């Protein structure tokens, strides 16, 4: 069992030899995982010569992460053939993982797209469009909430049990009141782990809802979907959590003030929530506390939750006064 959080970043490979050993130790598929299908190529284990080809190509196209140079990369020798599994990738395309060696940026991982012919050393080989130097960690949709550029500094089962002055506590949203108490009274209970991260997610979800509302696209499915999803999930989980702990007197004043600030923002956004067909915090909180009370008194049955409840968000938004 993991009792303490771990920061694997500190133990990651820092030299090409370390990276080679690290990658070589990883299991690989040993069978035909596309049996019955016909990919043109397969994943490649890059030789020293091929690693040099990659390094030369990086220099040739000046591929670099912002703040670093093209020569500051380690090359992942397990080159992935992407031309088969990804519709938008060229049939000859490979993705080669790159790990930055620039001091302070060792956690930043990206890739370069190259063709099979290039990796084979064919000077006439097709050259594919050079991709942007994106970070692998940016695939995480919560990346914007994390305390480091490449993800959370604390992970593990106790990831949120950090000290109050830890990185998470220092990342409360800008929208929080400025007049928060500087010191925590002695009577304040033990901090609720992750309460500040809950508030970040709630405020971030509300920000996205408001942005969607400002675009005027309403419930246009492709742009509405993610703000609505994140809002609904946060309101069905993170928010009831905070309300529950508030009812138990377990939130310190700083978090409490931040929670009330969020609620005030949400109340102010009531029109936007209604027009986008989204739930409002106040009734959600009341229902959550009632449900928790029933659960604690043994009168709540989960069984009914396997039936389909009436959707609270499906009704069409009311038209503003004066509109047709």
């Amino acid at each position: 069992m993991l009792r303490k959080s771990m920061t694997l970043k500190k133990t990651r490979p820092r030299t090409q030899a370390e990276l080679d050993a690290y990658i070589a130790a990883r299991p690989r598929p040993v069978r035909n995982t596309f049996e019955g299908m016909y990919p043109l190529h397969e994943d490649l284990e890059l030789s020293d010569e091929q690693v040099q080809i990659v390094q030369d190509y990086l220099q040739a196209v000046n591929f670099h992460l912002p703040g670093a140079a093209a020569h500051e990369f380690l090359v992942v020798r397990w080159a992935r053939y992407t031309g088969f599994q990804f519709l938008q990738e060229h049939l000859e395309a490979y993705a080669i993982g790159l790990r930055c060696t620039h001091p302070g940026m060792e956690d930043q991982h990206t890739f370069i797209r190259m063709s099979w012919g290039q990796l084979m050393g064919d000077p006439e080989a097709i050259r594919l469009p050079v991709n942007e130097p994106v970070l692998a960690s940016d695939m995480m949709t919560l990346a914007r909430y994390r305390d480091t550029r490449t993800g959370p500094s604390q992970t593990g089962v106790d990831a949120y049990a950090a000290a109050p002055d830890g990185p998470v506590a220092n990342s409360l949203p800008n929208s929080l009141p400025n007049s928060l108490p500087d010191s925590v009274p002695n009577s304040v209970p033990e901090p609720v782990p992750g309460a500040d991260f809950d508030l970040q997610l709630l405020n971030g979800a509300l920000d996205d809802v408001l942005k969607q509302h400002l675009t005027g696209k309403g419930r246009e499915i492709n742009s509405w979907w993610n703000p609505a999803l994140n809002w609904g999930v946060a309101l069905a989980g993170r928010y009831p959590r905070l309300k529950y702990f508030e009812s138990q007197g377990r939130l310190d004043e700083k978090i409490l003030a931040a929670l009330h600030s969020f609620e005030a923002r949400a109340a102010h956004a009531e029109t936007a929530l209604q027009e986008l067909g989204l739930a409002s915090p106040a009734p959600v909180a009341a229902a959550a506390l009632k449900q928790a009370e029933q659960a604690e008194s043994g009168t709540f049955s989960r069984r009914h939750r396997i039936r389909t409840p009436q959707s609270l968000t499906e009704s069409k938004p009311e038209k503003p006064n004066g509109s047709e």
Partner: protein
Amino acid sequence: MDLGFPWWLRVEHFLNIIFISFLVRSGLEILGTYPKLYRSQHTVPGTSWAQFTVQDEPKHKYYTVGGEDSNYSPRISLPGRGLLGLGRYWHFMAVTGFVTCWIIYFVLLLVTGQWRRYVPTSWDVFSQAGQDMLAYLAFTMPHPVDGMVFNALQQLSYGFVILILTPLVILTGAFQSPAIANHFSRITRALGGRQVIRSTHFLCLVGYVAFFAVHVILVFMHGYLHETSKMVLGHSNSPVVGGVIFSIGLALIVTLHVVATRWTLADGRAVEKLHNVIVRPWSNLLYKLPARMHYDRSNITGKDVGIDNTTHNFRGSGRPPETPEYLALMANCYEDDYVLEIGGYVERPMTLTIAQLRELAAGHSQTTLHHCVQGFTSIGRWRGITVSDLLDLVKPLPGATDVVYTSFQNMGRDDVLYEGGTYYESTPMVEARMPQTLIAFELNDEGEIPAKNGGPVRLRLETSTGFRSLKWLERIEVTNRYDIILKGRGGFFEDTDFYDRNQLI
């Protein structure tokens, strides 16, 4: 004993015309979304023993099962146009009526002694049936057996349909259910495996259609008015009256099909509500059947399960994320850039790397049969940690009811077939707590989960059809409701299409 045609038998005959015709049409809808039949549970592309599509697969690009479907016309299937979810709704509603009807009918046959009309009490019936067959081939009408209402061939064929074909179609239908098949996994294997069961179910359909065709021809050969009058009035003393009433009944059934098809295409949600009223009362009972599939009998002794029986090319539905960030994640072997967030309505939220998940899982694996809602199967050995174990770590708060899973697959971006955004799913706590509900990070001892199968981390719900086993998992959020999330039905396809969150069948 005068067997005759008692009223309950005539009612059952009429109801069966309705139920079976609905079952056949909705069954074709289901077949159409994966119009290929296999013997092997691995469903290796190119090895089907029958297929009902002319669609070509791309040669050098990976294709998902989602792209292998065929849209049949609403004139043939119910409701047509590739609306699998609605076809399933009709199939299960018809199943409810059909099975109920058959059970009542079976009991009445036993109680009233009417079973004699279908069960031969003498070996002579078989030789007589042969002679009857010859008579039919000579375009002459064989006579009924003494004391019976049918001739010997009719007796055997009706008996086969009612007492053999029907139980077989019910059994093979029941084992299409992932909850049933993975709970009674030994029976699944004893029946030849999921694809043999599926093929048998299809052959039962063929059997019904063939029987229906011959049956109708014989009715006409024996005299339409004469025969249908028996099915309406119980006798043939007033053949015109009986025949007219029967014909009106048939016209009503045709009208029923037309109305049902148009209604379904116009208002699928109304059909969904009807389905929930009829089917949910019994399909919810399947939550009592946790999956306990291990694709190796030796596992019951506690031995580790080998990968010999697993599928090499584990098929998939849904496209991996088409973003450069995902390619970067994959090219760097996922491990050092990925974190799984577990929070929501819990005491202790957490963020776990794959290495930490691996450590928590302590080598746990399960080798299970994947049931795609379209029909394909694959067998995979999944390494991971059960959701139940994770829930024990995060400690859901009082009143927690559901677990929501979100992916970094964006449907509108990644899959030309769909619109919308982030894929998500939810499970009621009872399903989340099942022993084979798993957060998996490795398939078939290959070190990771391939991109096409949901790498780096995915959900496995062995009691549900496959689309609910969310791939490319990023977040797990415990909640105390799900009706306020998006359209309130508990998942991407539940919200945007016509699929029940209860996918145990």
